[in-house]
């Protein structure tokens, strides 16, 4: 028998045996014992195939649903096989075995507690006892893999089961776990951390936390800084961690940064470095261990710094983070690390010198430190430190050594610092630091926009778009921007060879233009410059061979329409008609969807917001233009035509969006117009026929030049709601239907075998 069929049979038998009556029936025929019992598959040659072992364990997992199954597991010797499968060479089998043990333990305890009171009487049922014994034995084993397996089972158990018996379980095993911490080296440290956290999070164990905290405190002292870091972060996230432990845990997280700052401090020291909050770093036993790790090798140093920075970044926004938050020293540390990586920090101490050499040019630490620095922008800061931050960001943005990925992060961090920079109340101007920084920024942007790396050009354009979206109205910003070449360069990048960059340039130029920050024309006050951008964007929309720039253009146009951009407002109808005409021919369905979005914004402007079903009906005063007039213009602009054509689109999202738009229109026009039936109006009948034929799987063309009446009639007589429901179903429902599945199964038996090899 093929191993795949055998594996399937095992799973199938398990599925059947999940029902108690079915189980009894199969057991009578001794089938279960043959498949899952001691003398079963382990004796087969196929047992060496991982699929068979996996099938066996999945079968058992399905079967283990009722008390009969538990007896079977304990008596048939299956549990012992599960124990041995925990160490299986296949990751999947080993993991499934552990999960099955957790499930069996829980099921067994649940079955034991189903007395009249439903409470546990303190006696371990046979199956649970067996598992407990195995766990205790494993925890005392000298073989690390066995300890890991036991710890993993316990972690899952405490994570999943919150019944009172788990407390007794912990009480029994806690001393064994604590003993693990006394060994050198500590075995399975990673799993041990997971277990301690899982127990700490369990709501069922609140009364036995005393011993847990002791174990955690000990672990924080003895584990390596990398492992202790994960435990410390987990502890700090707990809502009910004792204060002393929080102090110890935070100390563990701060230690590596404090070491870096200490090692590089020049007397009297840069700002912030000696201002660690009192208490946090007192008695941190791990200190020398941390220093050793930091200085032992480059990979260890990079590893611990990256981890610590990421952990502090994760902690910073949480409400339960330690208070007072040492913002200033952390900022100082982040800046120091960035300087060390950049080579602009020096140190006379030997440790500092080693750190300089280790971190110089290290991209991984640079990225982590920049991310962390970005997070710190959300806090209050002193002017002096803000100056430091902007200085280091300047170094990074301007340095020719910064890699594209580092530059991208530097731009993101800069944006966060600029946007969160405090303003003087009542004064619209920027603070002194951002202002100084802006003056240096634009020449850098100018240089970076000409970078040979597309990643850099793109990141700058993304940064520029974001910044002008927020600061477009800022006088200082406008002055600095307009005094630079940046707007001109942005416009030039509309012709970039890289499509991603063209798309970002479209977004940036669109944003600058809507803020009146476009490139200065040759002669001032020249209206051609503006017209130029609109023309250029239209040209991109109709000729660019890539989808991204075309999509970006329609997005910019939609934004312009929404914001009442001067060029659009000058002749909105011409604008809409032109854009829709180009968009309707586009091969990229996302461009067509965005075209429909543009049409919808236009309709909302003309007809008012869609009715909210929960809103008290208000008189239709919102609609500025009378409906017949709007309908006329819609016909003129061929917007109806565009939307109906989109309804027939072979790409589902386009049809869906068109349906949404037409439903909105139908709703708005429900109260208006004549009572003519669809069949009476020229054009609408053939439109109907087309729609019907389309539904039957054929393609067709709508008759052109429909009049408003015909459109209204077509709109009313089309089952848009039904169509919307059909479109909302993904095409998977076809593939997932039992019919389709059966056909595939039957087919696989036959012809396909030969072809399978040609995968990809």
């Amino acid at each position: 028998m093929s191993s795949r069929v055998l594996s399937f049979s095992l799973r199938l038998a398990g599925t059947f045996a999940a029902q108690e009556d079915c189980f009894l029936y199969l057991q009578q025929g001794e089938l279960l014992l043959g498949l899952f019992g001691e003398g079963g598959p382990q004796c087969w040659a196929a047992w060496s195939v991982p699929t068979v072992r996996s099938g066996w364990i999945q079968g058992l997992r399905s079967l283990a649903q009722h008390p009969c199954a538990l007896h079977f597991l304990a008596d048939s010797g299956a549990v012992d096989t599960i124990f041995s499968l925990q160490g299986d060479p296949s990751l999947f089998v080993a993991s499934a075995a552990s999960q099955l043990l957790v499930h069996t333990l829980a099921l067994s305890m649940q079955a034991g507690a189903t007395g009249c009171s439903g409470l546990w009487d303190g006696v371990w049922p046979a199956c649970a006892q067996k598992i407990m014994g195995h766990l205790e034995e494993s925890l005392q084993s000298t073989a690390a893999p066995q300890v890991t397996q036991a710890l993993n089972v316990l972690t899952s158990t405490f994570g999943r089961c919150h019944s009172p018996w788990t407390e007794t379980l912990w009480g029994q095993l806690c001393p064994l776990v604590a003993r693990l911490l006394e060994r050198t080296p500590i075995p399975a440290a990673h799993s041990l951390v997971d277990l301690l956290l899982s127990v700490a999070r369990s709501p069922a164990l609140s009364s036995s936390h005393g011993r847990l905290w002791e174990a955690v405190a000990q672990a924080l002292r003895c584990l390596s800084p990398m492992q202790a870091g994960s435990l410390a972060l987990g502890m700090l996230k707990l809502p009910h961690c004792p204060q002393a432990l929080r102090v110890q845990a935070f100390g563990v997280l701060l230690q590596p940064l404090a070491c870096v700052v200490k090692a590089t401090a020049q007397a009297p020291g840069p700002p912030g470095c000696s201002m660690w909050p009192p208490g946090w770093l007192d008695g941190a036993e791990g200190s020398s261990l941390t220093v050793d790790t930091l200085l032992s090798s480059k990979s260890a140093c990079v590893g611990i710094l990256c981890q610590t920075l990421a952990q502090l970044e994760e902690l910073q926004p949480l409400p339960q983070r330690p208070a007072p938050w040492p913002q200033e020293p952390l900022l100082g540390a982040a800046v120091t690390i960035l300087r060390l990586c950049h080579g602009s920090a020096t140190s006379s101490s030997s440790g500092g010198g080693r750190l300089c050499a280790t971190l110089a040019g290290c991209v991984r630490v640079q990225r982590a430190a920049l991310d962390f620095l970005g997070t710190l922008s959300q806090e209050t800061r002193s002017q002096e430190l803000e100056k430091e931050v902007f200085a280091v960001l300047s170094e990074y943005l301007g340095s020719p050594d910064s890699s594209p990925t580092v530059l991208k992060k530097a731009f993101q961090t800069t944006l966060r610092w600029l946007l969160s920079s405090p303003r003087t109340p009542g004064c619209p101007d920027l603070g002194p630091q951002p202002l100084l920084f802006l003056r240096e920024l634009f020449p850098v942007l100018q240089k970076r926009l000409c970078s040979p790396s597309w990643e850099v050009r793109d990141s700058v354009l993304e940064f520029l778009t974001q910044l002008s979206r927020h600061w477009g109205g800022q006088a200082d910003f406008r002055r600095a921007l307009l005094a630079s070449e940046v707007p001109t360069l942005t416009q030039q990048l509309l012709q970039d060879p890289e499509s991603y960059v063209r798309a970002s340039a479209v977004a940036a130029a669109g944003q600058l233009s809507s803020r009146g920050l476009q490139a200065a024309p040759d002669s001032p006050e020249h209206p051609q410059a503006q017209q130029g951008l609109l023309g250029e964007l239209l040209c991109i929309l109709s000729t660019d061979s890539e989808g991204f720039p075309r999509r970006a253009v329609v997005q910019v146009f939609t934004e312009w329409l929404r914001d009442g951009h001067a060029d659009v407002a000058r002749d909105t109808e011409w604008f809409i008609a032109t854009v829709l005409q180009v968009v309707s021919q586009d091969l990229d369905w996302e461009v067509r969807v965005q075209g429909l979005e543009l049409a919808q914004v236009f309709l909302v402007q003309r007809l008012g917001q869609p009715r909210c079903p929960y809103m008290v009906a208000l008189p239709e005063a919102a609609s500025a233009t009378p409906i017949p007039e709007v309908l006329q213009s819609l016909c003129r602009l061929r917007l109806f035509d565009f939307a109906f054509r989109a309804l027939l689109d072979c790409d589902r999202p386009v049809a869906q969006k068109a349906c949404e738009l037409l439903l909105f229109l139908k709703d708005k026009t429900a109260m208006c117009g004549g009572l003519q039936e669809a069949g009476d109006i020229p054009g609408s009948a053939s439109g109907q026929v087309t729609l019907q034929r389309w539904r039957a799987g054929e393609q067709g063309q709508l008759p052109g030049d429909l009049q408003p009446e015909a459109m209204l009639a077509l709109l009313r007589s089309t089952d848009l709601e039904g169509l919307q429901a059909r479109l909302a179903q993904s095409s998977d429902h076809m593939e997932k239907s039992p019919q389709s599945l059966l056909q595939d199964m039957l087919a696989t038996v036959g012809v396909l075998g030969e072809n399978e090899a040609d995968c990809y």
Partner: protein
Amino acid sequence: MLDCGMHMGFNDDRRFPDFSYITQNGRLTDFLDCVIISHFHLDHCGALPYFSEMVGYDGPIYMTHPTQAICPILLEDYRKIAVDKKGEANFFTSQMIKDCMKKVVAVHLHQTVQVDDELEIKAYYAGHVLGAAMFQIKVGSESVVYTGDYNMTPDRHLGAAWIDRCRPNLLITESTYATTIRDSKRCRERDFLKKVHETVERGGKVLIPVFALGRAQELCILLETFWERMNLKVPIYFSTGLTEKANHYYKLFITWTNQKIRKTFVQRNMFEFKHIKAFDRAFADNPGPMVVFATPGMLHAGQSLQIFRKWAGNEKNMVIMPGYCVQGTVGHKILSGQRKLEMEGRQVLEVKMQVEYMSFSAHADAKGIMQLVGQAEPENVLLVHGEAKKMEFLRQKIEQEFRVSCYMPANGETVTLPTSPNIPVGISLGLLKREMAQGLLPETKKPRLLHGTLIMKDSNLRLVSSEQALKELGLAEHQLRFTCRVHLQDTRKEQETALRVYSHLKSTLKDHCVQHLPDGSVTVESILIQAAAHSEDPGTKVLLVSWTYQDEELGSFLTALLKKGLPQAPS
């Protein structure tokens, strides 16, 4: 991490790898130094944006220049199909693909790239598709070669894979065609052309669903040449936009194509076709024969499916599937012989057109895989990307022929390989100088032993002189002396015996410095000889010979010499 692909057969969680097996609770970036992508096929790079932008890997990604250029196109295609057809909302976006591509570091063939202080990688040409590469990964003296997918025979547009005799500790090779010795490709091509020709001759239409780049270009070259030779006028179309794009990339990366294309490129670009024109949706309804290449390749959505629906009802027409189709797709259904397909909207589509399957996929066959193993001369081989039964066959063959261990782990299985790494040891200049001073320059054929003290400090090893080692480690020196007693029959006084010993040694050991010290003892180099009276027998003198560890040889020699007795003094 080598490759980051997806399973095209699944639409749920199973489509992407379960990365939690790598990290458990930690962050991916802490566990991985880099990701290496071998080529642009989705089963090798399809999960990349999910991995880097949704799961949170933030490190570098390495791939070749053509892969870097083409990968985002395929990812974007795939994304659009997933969102369009399946209506998936929680999927990676275009922005995520872009952000992911920004993390890519492109590499050249045969360029050694230093990932960090310890890890270096190097790409080799793999054939298979444009830009496909095999990677050698090296840490210290240990190395692994990962082949990705490769092809050992050149085809119409690509060359054959090639690798150095780099003798890696481990070669991880694909084994798609592990047991097959592929029939000649020419036969398959002839068969393909015959089928297409027959169909258009009888007025039928031929649909060839393809993916934008790769096999499609090869088939285009094939048809173009055939049309030219047979002077055929039937139109051939290729999905709009894609021809230009494909051409653009083949032109850009012309060095990655085979020699013939590179040579002829000077006169005529082989990818600028005379007979193949851009396709317009309206053409599908045109009467008369035609050949259309349309995307996507598995008939699961888009243009190819649309055309298929139109043409399926006519028995004169033909659809040729040039590649594998995953379960659930229309392509899979028709290949498995279904003739009535349930389409969306509860309609049933009756398939009367002819359905043909032809494999043009470019993987190495068993012979090719053996050839590569022979080229690279690995210490161990690991088979992946194949079926267990076939791999078992190949495994035995490799073990027999090359006498190396060959493994074929199932998914999730761990393989442990013993290696004997070379550990570099630095030798101190002082030690070398001292060796030099002793004369005798070492010869390559005649190795010489060098004595010193091995110090492991700051995770590197150095061989230094013992004095320097003591100094560096701050240890005090302890001298170990061996002492031996030699009994001599001599009735004279101790001083006289010593003098006799001195004259004897002086005359015997011409090359050594023999001294008679004022206290009566005799030295030869570091060896000290003292004469003493025997406590019980006045006619016997005891010579105490003591030497240091370093002069062990001389010490033993002297002891042996003295044991023979002294020459009789001239009376």
